[in-house]
């Protein structure tokens, strides 16, 4: 399922002064109700389309984890689709027996895995997770466990939870885990609202975590897909970890690989009891229903979930103040670029509004970064700017991809120059109004359909309070030029930032087909020369160069032959290209 962070979303409402006053008082008329067991219920009737977008958020994300169980919130998101006593198995009694037997084997396996980690610490094995390094006892136990899996498969009804919704006309069924929240959602035809009630209340009331250990393998593949195998995934993860010092935002939502492999069913059960109690959940429905009847149905189905025994623990660790600039230099398969983060403020903080305005001033095609880095002096080809307020803390992000031939440090300096202007000069009124107009129009565009509204309510509720979708907009409209200047001076200091500088990894895939046979010393030289050849438009100069290369080749040593041949080939290709025109 999706892994997302809420960094790129802003929730706002209300209108620019330029708009007609009649529109000013409109808000999203959500009603809020609290059941006796603590469950919060949000309802919004909309009768345009014959469907209901329904979802619920558990106010738990990776920030609620601790070292050793990182990734558990996300693993839960996967496990919540595995069924209930009656969904997912043909024989629940036997199912429970097998699950318990599996757990006993896993307990013994964990003892062996501890021995492997000890062997790794002593340097006896290279990697405690490699299948080749398993102890004979662990191999035995692995086989025993696999037999139990096969046995369970005989009575398993595969993905039945999904199948029931699918046959019922459910669509957009998915879930995501962020640093702050885990959200589950689906759209059902309006006449299937009770199916939603049954399915969601059952899986919260009595979930069965079948296929727990196979699902950890799925998460590993998800990690490989998102983090390990993408050009920037592993570097972005490292940068985020570098940025946060004391705060739990420092570990990735998907978890550290060693932790994902070690999480036990028992830990999962504890986590569930703590964070999936109804007082920590909010149920949200948007669409074609009658609120009064729907509320009665909610009480019938969700009211039976017992209240949790303990209050959900708060995240108490605060990010410590950063004392020095941090820098990361990464060589990656990417065009050179720079990415900068500053510590700012959490969701709903008074300064988050001027910071959001400031981000808008810098971003978009008519924003300052594009105008002054891409269009003007042309140091960059692309730029970005975000204020990312999360529930417990926030960050501000600016960055850009270098234009060919320019260095990340040049882009970085150009960004600082733009920030300096914002620190020293008030925003012109028209520029501020332009940004506010866009926030105001965005208030309408976000209301296009039930699903989109549900998503916004889930995000706002997960980050702190759903009311922000009605209250954030007016606050953005009251931001002044002085506010923007004040926050620019307050947050954008050298000590408060972390900078990631990306350069293209030498010998990266881009030039591999041509660079076969070149030495590591020759490659960077070749890259430089080839780029000048490709940019050359003077035909005569190229022809002269080709001639020189012919001469050099005739007297070159063996080890430079390959290098010179490549240059000659590329020069000739360029000549042919120019002659064709």
């Amino acid at each position, binding site marked *: 399922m999706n892994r997302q962070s809420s960094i790129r979303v802003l929730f706002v409402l209300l209108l620019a002064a330029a708009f007609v006053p*009649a*529109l000013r008082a*409109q808000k999203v*008329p959500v*009603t*809020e*109700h*609290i059941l*006796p067991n603590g469950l919060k*219920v949000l309802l919004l009737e909309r009768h*345009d*389309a*014959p*469907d209901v977008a329904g979802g619920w958020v558990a106010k738990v994300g990776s920030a609620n984890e601790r070292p050793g169980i990182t990734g558990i919130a996300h693993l839960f998101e996967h496990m919540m*689709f595995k069924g209930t006593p*009656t969904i997912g198995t043909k024989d629940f009694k036997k199912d429970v027996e097998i699950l318990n037997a599996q757990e006993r084997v896993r307990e013994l396996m964990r003892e062996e895995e501890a021995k492997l980690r000890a062997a790794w610490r002593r340097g006896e094995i290279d990697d405690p997770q490699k*299948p*080749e390094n398993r102890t004979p006892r662990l191999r035995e136990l692995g086989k025993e466990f696999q037999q139990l899996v096969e046995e369970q*498969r005989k009575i398993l009804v595969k993905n039945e939870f999904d*199948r029931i919704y699918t*046959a*019922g006309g459910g*669509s957009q069924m998915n879930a995501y885990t962020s640093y702050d929240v885990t959200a589950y959602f689906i759209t059902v035809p309006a*006449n*299937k609202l009770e199916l939603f009630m049954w399915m969601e209340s059952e899986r919260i009331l009595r979930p069965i975590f079948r*296929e727990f250990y*196979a699902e*950890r393998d*799925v998460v*590993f*593949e998800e990690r*490989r*897909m998102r983090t*390990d195998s*993408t*050009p920037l995934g592993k570097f972005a993860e490292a940068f985020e970890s570098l940025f946060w010092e004391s705060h739990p935002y420092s570990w990735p939502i998907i978890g550290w690989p060693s932790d994902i492999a070690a999480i036990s069913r028992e830990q999962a059960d504890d986590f569930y009891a703590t964070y999936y109690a109804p007082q920590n959940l909010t149920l949200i429905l948007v669409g074609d229903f009658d609120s009064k009847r729907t509320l*009665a149905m909610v009480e019938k*189905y969700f*009211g039976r979930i017992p209240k949790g025994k303990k209050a959900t623990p708060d995240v108490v660790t605060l990010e410590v103040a950063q004392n020095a600039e941090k820098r990361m230099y990464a060589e990656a*398969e*990417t*065009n050179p670029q720079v990415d900068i983060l500053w510590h700012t403020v959490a969701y709903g903080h008074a300064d988050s509004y001027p910071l959001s305005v400031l981000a808008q001033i810098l971003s978009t*095609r*008519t924003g300052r970064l594009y105008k002054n880095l891409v*269009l003007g002096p042309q140091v960059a*080809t692309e730029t970005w700017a975000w204020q990312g307020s999360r529930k417990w803390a926030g960050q501000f992000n600016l960055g850009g991809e270098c*234009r*060919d031939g320019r260095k990340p440090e040049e882009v970085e300096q150009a960004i600082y120059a733009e920030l300096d202007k914002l620190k020293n000069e008030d925003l012109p009124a028209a520029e501020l*109004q*332009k940004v506010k*107009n866009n926030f105001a129009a*965005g208030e*309408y565009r976000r*209301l*296009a359909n039930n699903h989109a509204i549900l998503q916004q309510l889930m995000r706002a509720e997960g980050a702190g309070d759903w009311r922000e979708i009605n209250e954030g907009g007016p606050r953005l409209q009251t931001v002044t030029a002085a506010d923007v200047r004040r926050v620019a001076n307050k947050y954008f200091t050298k000590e408060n930032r972390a900078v990631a500088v990306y350069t293209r990894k030498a010998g990266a*895939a*881009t030039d591999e*087909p041509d660079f076969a046979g070149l030495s590591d010393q020759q490659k960077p030289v070749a890259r430089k020369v080839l780029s000048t050849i*490709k940019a050359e438009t003077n035909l005569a100069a190229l022809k002269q160069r080709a001639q020189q290369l012919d001469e050099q080749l005739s007297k070159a040593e063996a080890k430079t032959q390959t290098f010179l041949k490549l240059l000659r080939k590329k020069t000739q290709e360029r000549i042919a*290209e120019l002659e064709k025109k």
Partner: protein
Amino acid sequence: MKPIFVHALLLSLSVVVFAPAADAIPDRPEKLQFPALKYEPPRAADHRVVLKSGPVAYVVPDRELPLVSLVIYVRTGQHTEPAGKEGLASLAGSLLARGGTKSKTAEELEERLAFLAAGLNASVGDTQGTVSLNLLSKDLDEGLAILREVLTAPRLQEDKLALFKQQTLQSMKQRNDDSADIEQRERRFLAYGENFWVNRHATQASIESITRADIEAFHRRWFHPKNFVVAASGDFDRAALTAKLETLFASWPFQGDVAKPVPTDKQFAAPGLYFVEKDVNQGRVSLLLPGIRRDDPDYPAVEVMNDILGGGGFTSRIMNRVRSDEGLAYSAGTGFPGGVYYPLSFVAVFQSKSGTVAYATSLVLDEMRKIAATPVTAEELETTKKSFIETFPSSFATKGQVAGALAQEEFTGRYAKEPDYFKNYRAKIAAITAADVQRVAKKYMTPEKAVILVVGQKAEILKGHPNHPVKIESLAPRMVNVPLRDPLTMKP
């Protein structure tokens, strides 16, 4: 302008106390009773307007929000690009909306649109161009005047062309960075052939050769009302908007051309295993088979078959086997899109760690054989059919979707041949039997023709996994090493 919601702010915080439930909650959801849902899809006749100025428009008022959305679909595409000018269509799209107009420089146009919080965009894809305008209804007249100028008298500013060319060239350099990009590109080469038009990629030489005159010629040739189909939705009166559209398209200042039919001379690769070396710890696999057109009589049965095999997410067989049973992949599934102009290929895709690529591939092939050999179960068939039928209304959840879907029917020519396509869709799906599914599975699921593309660490993938003896080279008649293409010339 209408308020968003009839009621004013209605927030209530209350602790709800209810009477206990009268009837008990059943142990299985099948025991629930649901009220009937009557639904009729939108009819073209209710919204279709043939404008005197040429285009057909679908006009769907929606007074909930003070917004108007206008989308113009244009009969053009990458297939019309002259040889040597690959990338022209895409650059033309960008420059049309971003390059200013006769009365406004690019900078003035951008500033005005931004101040109005209006979205004006243009792009040209493989078989259609799109120009869209989304704005507050109070600004509609100004927006339409700007749109008219963009369409009839774009400035196509030279400095912006130079910028877009530079950006295109620079992004080309990233063509081999991401294994997913490599997979997607090579998949198209294998499915449609080196010489098919979809595989004519922009190169450094082609982009450098493109001039403002090329863009201008492209624009004047294709951006003419006779090539337009319009989808309009939002806060307007139908008659009033129709009149505005007539003005928008009246007395066009130049004569356009009508494009030749989309070429269909594709060529499917020889069966085999095609390897692209890439140093990532997860192999990406695409398994291809020759495809089908959407107007083929087999297509409804093919849609159902594909959904059961791998198209239906967690309810499908391949997801169950590869992900849920074995934990071999995060995403695994199949696609069998019916082509509008030529048959689009079937594809099964998944990503798995190097060691288990071979085993997971064997499972996918196994599922393809199974669905051809044995009829699907009544339950599988029922689930898929109900899903297609019951989720059908969600294709029309907003007025924008209604206008867009109807306009696409017009644009792609299905409306002319089958005006009741939407009306009949659910009945067609409901009529599919298990025998139909097996018949099309036998016809199209032919592992002996499979082209298997693997992007990843070849040496590691060839080793396989200690727990699974299957070797990847045993799954195809031959193995071909596909070299990475030079990102700037696209030559291997």
